[in-house]
């Protein structure tokens, strides 16, 4: 017994009843008085010159209130990580999701009809869809003004001497691996409602996962549109899934703002399911050349990786995923010598973005697949090579990550035990087992200058507590976790805690929901605020009860003296006393928590996170040799999670992660574990995701010397 009443308990998500009964308000449900409906016309071709764009028939349709084209975007405004993306494109289109016109109309139906009435003539141009082709000398330029298709980004990390250690290695495994586009496929499609007041202040109803940063992006846009010194308020509706897709701002949001500005009415722009696939930004495909070496005992000597990322036609924050790919590349297992370079390359494809894992899954697929190849060359068991090189507490990795606690070996052992590895490995009878490990940031990640989150707590006369947090609820359960922590500190019921988390007019600043940071950062922020408000409450109680503060305790909403149980006072009474006393005071506390982690320096070194998450996944598969289909018979995920604030929500994160790629760290090792298991089962290695029946069957036939 740790004496904790809420923390560590399986408490169901606070918003579960709302979602289960359909009462939760998503962006799709939102209606404002006078609201118009927006719709976007996308390009018909991935690369083309627009010869003619005639919107007159659309504008003349009854019910249409505004039609916009690229010519209506003030001051050549562009958005995105490299500011290379105009909300509406003119002249040339660079991908099939290029927005070339938009309408606002009195209904969704009229808006759709108007879009069909826009006449466009294109001159189709040859496109580049392969980043390797885009890198070739003489390749036509996606953005002519940039002079190169390779983005000017500094993705290079070097530690030790890879060349020397390559010569000294007893065994070397070398290969190429590729990964594919993956869409987040959120159940709640993207959308927003943009609304201006008479003073041109913007309220944006949105399902973003970065309210504070989006607020900043929209302020910049307003400035570019000629509206200086205005206010932007972000109100988040219930968010139907993020997974990284809502870590940036998008053209549709700026288009909604421009339409609202032109019509002086709120404009709603919500994606259809087709648009969600077509016009949101998926995970970036990668082409990875990897070599790893070990000594005669299987101890890793070096790891060298060259990676090419398909950036697509424009640039989002996703172009920074190589910074997180570096985490496993430098620090998954002990590797003394590391070299990593990555190039993000423009193509005429859809542009890519962050996706759960932020690049880590693509890097880990190559590392863990190649590690099995190395183990085979060195004649070491796949489990042994992972145990020999496993990370350990107290270690400082090549990127200067200071590893504090680390249960990697324990996770590997648990997987071995639960999968019955020793009996199931190496049978070659169509069934096989595979394993892969993971490292991920676990105590936030200082990607921006701040990694902080603010909390404000106020308590009312009746002992009810409002916790106003900067952290958004996107399904991960932050509302519940924060309530558990505050209830624990204050000794009140969890039902007395009301978490407010969806309005930048009220909520303090937060850098956003990413990098598995919410429970840790928002939780610590709430913890500090709760302790501050508790001190204030105890101070009043001490005076009222004439007892020293340190003799007081609070339980079930009653404050009592440990010395004299007769001396007690209900919390509500203390709170009322605070107001109903001459010279009274408000019971409000604020706290900002910014963890003591470090930004990378220019060589990409720095203790990015104050804790690192480790885990290992193992899988048993059966491969149908006649069809190439892979059936998962058993899946074991072992994670070093530290203390689980809410085991039920944690399990949800790991199950969800497992299925999606199979929480954020949860999906990292899935693909390589399965690829390794397929190899163990039938002796073919699939190096190109996804692992389709066609690929498996083709490889089996090639191995048997048959044609396909």
């Amino acid at each position: 017994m740790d004496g904790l009443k809420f923390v560590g308990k399986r408490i169901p998500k606070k918003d579960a009843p709302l979602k289960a009964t359909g009462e939760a308000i998503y962006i799709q449900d939102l209606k404002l008085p006078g609201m118009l409906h927006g719709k976007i016309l996308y390009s018909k071709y991935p690369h083309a010159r627009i010869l003619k764009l005639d919107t007159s028939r659309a504008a003349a349709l009854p019910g249409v209130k505004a039609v916009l084209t690229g010519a209506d975007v003030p001051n050549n405004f562009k958005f995105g990580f490299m500011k290379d993306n105009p909300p509406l494109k003119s002249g040339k289109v660079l991908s099939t999701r290029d927005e070339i016109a938009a309408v606002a109309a009195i209904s969704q139906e009229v808006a759709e009809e108007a879009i069909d009435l826009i006449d466009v003539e294109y001159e189709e141009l040859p496109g580049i869809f392969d980043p390797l082709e885009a890198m070739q000398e003489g390749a036509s330029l996606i953005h002519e003004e940039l002079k190169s298709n390779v983005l000017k980004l500094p993705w290079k990390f070097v530690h030790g001497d890879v060349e020397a250690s390559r010569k000294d290695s007893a065994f070397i495994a070398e290969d190429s691996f590729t990964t594919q586009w993956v869409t987040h496929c959120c159940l709640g499609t993207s959308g927003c409602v943009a609304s201006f007041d008479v003073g041109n202040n913007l309220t944006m109803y949105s399902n973003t996962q970065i309210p504070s940063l989006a607020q900043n992006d929209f302020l910049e846009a307003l400035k570019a549109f000629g509206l200086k010194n205005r206010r932007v308020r972000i109100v988040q509706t219930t968010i139907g899934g993020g997974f990284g897709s809502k870590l940036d701002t998008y053209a549709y949001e700026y288009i909604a703002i421009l339409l609202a500005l032109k019509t002086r009415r709120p404009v709603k722009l919500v994606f259809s399911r087709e648009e969600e696939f077509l016009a949101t930004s998926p995970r970036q495909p990668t082409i990875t050349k990897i070599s790893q070496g070990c000594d005669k005992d299987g101890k890793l000597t070096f790891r060298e990786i060259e990676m090419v990322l398909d950036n697509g036609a424009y640039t989002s924050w996703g172009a920074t995923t190589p910074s997180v790919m570096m985490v496993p590349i430098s620090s998954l297992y002990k590797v003394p010598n590391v070299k990593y370079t990555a190039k993000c390359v423009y193509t005429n494809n859809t542009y890519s973005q962050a996706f759960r894992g932020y690049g880590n899954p693509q890097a880990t697929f190559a590392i863990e697949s190649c590690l099995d190849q190395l183990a085979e060359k060195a004649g070491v068991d796949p489990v042994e090579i992972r145990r020999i090189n496993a990370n350990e507490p107290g270690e400082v990795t090549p990127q200067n990550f200071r590893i504090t606690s680390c249960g990697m070996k324990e996770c590997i052992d648990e997987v071995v035990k639960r999968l019955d590895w020793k009996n199931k490995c190496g049978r070659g009878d169509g069934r096989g087992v595979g394993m892969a490990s993971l490292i991920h940031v676990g105590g936030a990640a200082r990607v921006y200058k701040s990694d902080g989150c603010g909390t404000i707590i106020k308590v009312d006369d009746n002992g009810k507590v409002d916790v106003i947090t900067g952290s958004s609820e996107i399904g991960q359960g932050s509302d519940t976790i924060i309530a558990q922590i505050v209830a624990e500190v204050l000794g009140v019921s969890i039902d007395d805690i009301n978490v407010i988390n969806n309005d930048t007019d009220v909520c303090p600043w937060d850098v956003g929901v990413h990098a598995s940071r919410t429970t840790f950062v928002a939780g610590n922020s709430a913890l500090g605020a709760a302790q501050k408000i508790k001190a204030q409450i105890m101070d009043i109680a001490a005076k009222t009860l004439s007892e020293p503060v340190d003799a007081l305790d609070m339980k079930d909403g009653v404050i009592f003296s440990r010395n004299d149980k007769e001396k007690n006072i209900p919390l509500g009474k203390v709170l009322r006393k605070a107001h109903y006393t001459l010279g009274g005071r408000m019971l409000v506390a604020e706290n900002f928590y910014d963890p003591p982690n470090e930004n990378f320096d220019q060589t990409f070194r720095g203790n990015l996170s104050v804790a690192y998450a480790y885990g290992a996944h193992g899988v048993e598969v059966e491969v149908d040799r006649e069809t190439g289909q892979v059936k998962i018979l058993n899946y074991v995920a072992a994670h070093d999670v530290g203390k689980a604030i809410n085991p039920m929500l944690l399990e949800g994160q790991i199950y969800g992660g497992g299925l999606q790629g199979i929480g954020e760290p949860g999906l990292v090792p899935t693909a390589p574990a399965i690829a390794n298991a397929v190899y163990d089962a039938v002796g073919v290695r699939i190096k190109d995701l996804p692992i389709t029946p066609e690929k498996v069957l083709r490889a089996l036939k090639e191995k048997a010397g048959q044609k396909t």
Partner: protein
Amino acid sequence: MGSFEYYKPESIAEAMALMEESGGKGVYIAGGTDVMVLIRQRKLSPGCLISLRNIGDLAYLDTSSGLAIGSGVTHNAIAKNDIIQTKYTALADATSKVGSLQIRNIATMGGNICNAAPSADTACPLLVLDARVVMAGKNGERSVPIDEFFLGPNRVALRPGEIVKGFEMPAFNERTGSAYIKHTRRQAMDLPMLGVAARVTIRIDGDQIGCRDALCGIENISDILKRFEDEKLVCEDVRIAMGVVAPRPMRAKKAEGALKGRVISEVLLQEIGEIAASECQPRDSIRGEAWYRRDMVKVLTKRAILRVVDRIIRPDDTIWPERLW
């Protein structure tokens, strides 16, 4: 989505009158799982929708002699029917795997067939179960074999204004069974990459104890087929149908001819698979490559026949050994 009139007639005659009134611009709608998608994608803009859901004459399911199913019966109602599960199993296989439960609860078999997608799951079972399509029109009812009903992708032998009333299948003897194998990339909510259905009537001379034992165990396919051969298990009659490997669901008639009247063996089934594969014309598409589809016709034809024989020999078994086919 544009606007349109929506009618809910209660008889076939009323529905046909509404269609005539619309001047051919109306569209019949049953479950709507195909029509509504087309409308939302703006690929279809009907003058009016004429719902067939309230027409009692389309909702029958009669198993008294053979099987007669009204076109308005939903996939789930078919999948849950005991007689269909035991006597027309291929149809239960197919209807239980279409879309999601929500879709199966509203989508009708008539709609699945009239939409005539090459991937329609119920098409292959109807082909092997010798189904006839009953149509109602201005001049009364007529029926055609299902094989003559499909003309090409999304094209069927309905005349203007005609409504598919239902489907009729003959009764089969105790030595007959059927199966449909849907090959998908995902386990649920997926269209077939291809589908293969088979109906087989076997001649049982002895008590086939060896076959039964083999099928109860976990022997591999070769060993099971060896028993079939040893105990002279003859294929008296057979139908094989394939979906998504040609512009329309099709019978593998040459393969059927090669199997009929012969003792089932591994060599023969291999040969049957090869013949079926040579009869189809698969294409490369996002769902699968042509070579793979052709290859899978070979594999699934063999497995479908094996599964049918298993069902005939072990009709009461509900527990299936864990194995690949």
